[in-house]
């Protein structure tokens, strides 16, 4: 994907600046940021904490409104959240007062789909996320990895064009996080979506992304772009690939120079 | 492990609380025992539980003018908003003497409390009914079906029963509700009740709220009250000289009031917080005189019947004379004792 293919771009940021607070307390979280994400592209935003990568995600989701500049989805300027963009957070994702099935069916209930359709949808995504048998559980009864699978199922079940993920695997142990990445990639390869994925983990970014935007902090700016042209599906062996090691050290030095 | 520690901590906490409660109770009991122990120094010091009422002129003046001090008696005055609470202070031995209208004393005696009335210090006609003319109350018969407030157990409550009986109105033909006098004035003014039985200055206050729209039914011959001084029997028996000193102080106050009514009114105004004009207007309804009269026994007897009818209990009607201690007044001013 290159910047010239504008028409195919799902998400476009035009000179977006985001300032939190007022007066002396004002903090510039994002400074004159322009970017675009292509249809069905898997984009990772990589950077240290406080670099504004989550701000970009929240702006794309429509939770925040830019101080200056504009955000476009499918060439239309957005002013708020929409069902075309699903979201997965690191924590406080699932509604603890709803069972697994209730969480997954939330979107279709908001769309007032008939009960039958809702049921089949819930079952479909329970299967897809390997959660069958847990539909009657409350989130607090599940492991964190399972909880994130339910979150993913809930977002997917609403069939958005874009999936925005805010460090979704950051609080999982390494093994579980790895399995979750593989699950995500497998599902994404079957049901393509535009994904913007925020992470501070270089390995995670290279493993998942088509393209990585590396960010600097205070104020948040996009520093560098890396295209990850490693073949998919990417499995264990790919960590020993020399292109992987090169990318890794390049990103690393870029992050350290910051 | 951590969890079981927490549980243990919780248990310890519960037990500590329990132990503390037991210790506290034991402590209170011990204190109760101590206060019973009679150990008095040469100069007598006692506590007087005093209610706020216009009829307590003599006690107020005796205290303010230091008449008891002159008799070698230190009297610590403890004010109470209601006579009933002052009586609790006496019965629980937190006070050695108190005074109140005879009615609460009658209930206390009926229920078996061992007290003495050592003198009365005022007779009064301050218990009345106040009604609203605009609610069509013009004659006693009009009380039928009306919403009437009373404070149960008081002399005005007794007056209400007598009043209704005299006019042939069954108690359940009136909508009776309980209230303390200050609230009666509020409820009366806003129309929640049509009238109320109470004592002064609350009748006066009610009249002030609705000038010209009210009607008063006074007690007439139906009832007159005795502001009475009460003490515990065991204390009186152990310290008859204290009772005499008290009475001498009262008599000095009685004389003072007779000589200086203006000053006495000022004292009452100061202690009760009622404005002096109201006191001046109500002054004639009170007779501040020390007496032990046969009429007191008659009043007590009638109120005793009433009290027993409201609260049937195993006790039989007490012998009222046994609860009146006349020796002290008899020794100081025999002319004031007419019990036979």
């Amino acid at each position: 994907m290159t910047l010239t293919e504008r028409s195919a771009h799902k998400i476009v940021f035009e000179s977006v600046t985001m300032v939190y607070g007022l007066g002396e307390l004002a903090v510039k979280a994002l400074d004159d940021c322009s970017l675009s994400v292509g249809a069905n592209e898997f984009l990772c935003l990589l950077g240290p904490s406080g670099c504004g990568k989550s701000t970009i995600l929240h702006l794309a989701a429509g939770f925040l409104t830019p101080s200056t500049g504009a955000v476009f989805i499918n060439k239309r300027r957005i002013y708020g959240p929409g069902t075309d963009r699903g979201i997965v957070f690191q924590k406080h994702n699932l509604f603890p007062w709803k069972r697994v099935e209730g969480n997954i069916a939330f979107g279709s209930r908001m769309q007032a789909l008939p009960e039958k359709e809702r049921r089949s949808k819930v079952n479909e995504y329970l299967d897809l996320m390997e959660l069958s048998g847990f539909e009657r559980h409350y989130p607090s009864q599940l492991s964190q990895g399972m909880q994130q699978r339910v979150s993913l199922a809930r977002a997917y079940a609403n069939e958005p064009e874009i999936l925005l993920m805010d460090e979704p695997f950051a609080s999982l142990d390494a093994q579980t996080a790895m399995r979750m990445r593989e699950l995500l990639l497998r599902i994404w390869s079957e049901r393509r979506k535009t994904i913007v994925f925020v992470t501070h983990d270089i390995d995670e970014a290279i493993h998942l992304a088509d393209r990585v935007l590396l960010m600097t902090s205070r104020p948040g700016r996009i520093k560098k772009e890396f295209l990850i042209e490693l073949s998919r599906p990417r499995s264990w062996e790919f960590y020993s690939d020399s292109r992987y090691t090169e990318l890794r050290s390049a990103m690393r030095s870029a992050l350290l120079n910051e | 492990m951590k969890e079981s520690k927490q549980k243990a901590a919780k248990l310890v906490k519960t037990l500590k609380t329990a132990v503390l409660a037991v210790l506290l109770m034991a402590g209170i009991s011990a204190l109760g025992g101590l206060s019973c122990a009679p150990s008095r120094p040469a100069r007598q010091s006692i506590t007087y539980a005093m209610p706020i009422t216009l009829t307590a002129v003599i006690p107020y003046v005796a205290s303010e003018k230091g008449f008891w001090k002159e008799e070698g008696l230190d009297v610590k005055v403890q004010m109470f908003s209601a006579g009933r609470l002052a009586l609790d202070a006496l019965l629980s031995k937190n006070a050695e003497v108190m005074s109140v209208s005879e009615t609460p004393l009658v209930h206390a005696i009926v229920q078996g409390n061992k007290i003495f009335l050592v003198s009365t210090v005022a007779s009064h006609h301050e218990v009345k009914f106040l009604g609203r003319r605009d609610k069509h109350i013009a004659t006693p018969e009009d009380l039928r079906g009306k919403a009437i407030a009373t404070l149960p157990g008081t002399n005005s409550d007794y007056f209400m029963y007598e009043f209704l009986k005299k006019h042939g109105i069954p108690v359940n033909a009136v909508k009776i509700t309980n209230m303390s006098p200050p609230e009666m004035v509020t409820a009366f003014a806003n129309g929640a009740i049509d009238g109320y039985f109470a004592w002064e200055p609350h009748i006066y206050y009610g009249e002030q709220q609705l000038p010209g729209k009210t009607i008063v039914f006074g007690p007439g011959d139906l009832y007159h009250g005795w502001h009475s001084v009460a003490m515990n029997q065991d204390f009186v028996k152990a310290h008859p000289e204290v009772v005499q000193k008290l009475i001498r102080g009262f008599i000095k106050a009685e004389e003072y009031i007779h000589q200086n009514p203006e000053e006495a009114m000022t004292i009452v105004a100061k202690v009760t917080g009622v404005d002096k004009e109201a006191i001046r207007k109500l002054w004639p309804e009170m007779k501040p005189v020390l007496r032990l009269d046969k009429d007191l026994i008659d009043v007590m007897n009638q109120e005793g019947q009433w009290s027993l009818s409201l609260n049937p209990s195993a006790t039989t009607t007490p012998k009222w004379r046994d609860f009146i201690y006349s020796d002290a007044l008899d020794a100081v001013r025999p002319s004031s004792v007419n019990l036979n």
Partner: protein
Amino acid sequence: MRRFWHLSRTRSRTSALGAVAVSLVLLLWQLVSYWHVYDNHLLPPPSYIVKAFVQMAQSGEWFVDVRDSLIRYGLGLLLGCFTGVAVGLVTGGIWPVRAALAPMLDFSRSTPMIALVPLFIVFFGIGLEEKVYLVAWGVFFPVWLNTQAGVSSTEREYLWAARSLGSSGWQLYGEVLLPRALPYIIVGVRVGITTGFFALGAAEVAGAFSGVVFRSYYSHQMFRTDKMMVAILTVGFLGFLCDRLYAITMTRLVPWWKENLDDLD
């Protein structure tokens, strides 16, 4: 002794310990009156109180008192909970409303209920309404404050997720804010159950001629301390009963908020 501390806490052991403690206090009480530490007329022993209770139950007086008090209390509790939750949802969700109302509500909530009786008489007379409103007043504040805390502490992620999934406006209240605040509301109502009884005490001071708290005042006036104690213990018992019933109901009704509900037991 060590073994005693390490007894694991079970429901039956908890109740058993409670029962043992209550019996001990009653025994001690009976002994205290046996030794005449206090005059039996001032603090009647349990045996007198039982006798008075039997008397009051036989004459039906006790049942009328309990019924009348429960009507006042129950209606007031419902009204207080309902308005408390409603106001809490609004003030918790919309900060300008919270800012505008906070001083007024904070000011009135520390006013002793008994001091409000004359005011309530002025506004509502002395009928059932006035008593119901007084109880509701007592219940309202803890329910309101807890509901507000629950709503205003709602994690933004829940609201964002719900909006991304297509809910808006009132749906956010029903789907997110209310259920999120529910554990807080449950605790608030539990406090309200207690403060409601305080308010009932104020309500029956004036303008009643029945009711458990009225009976306590009345018996005190009439020197029937045995009946007064029956009335006081009845209020305590009703409070205990309401609290228990509530705790049991809530554990059944809201199974998803396990941690918080354990405290309700």
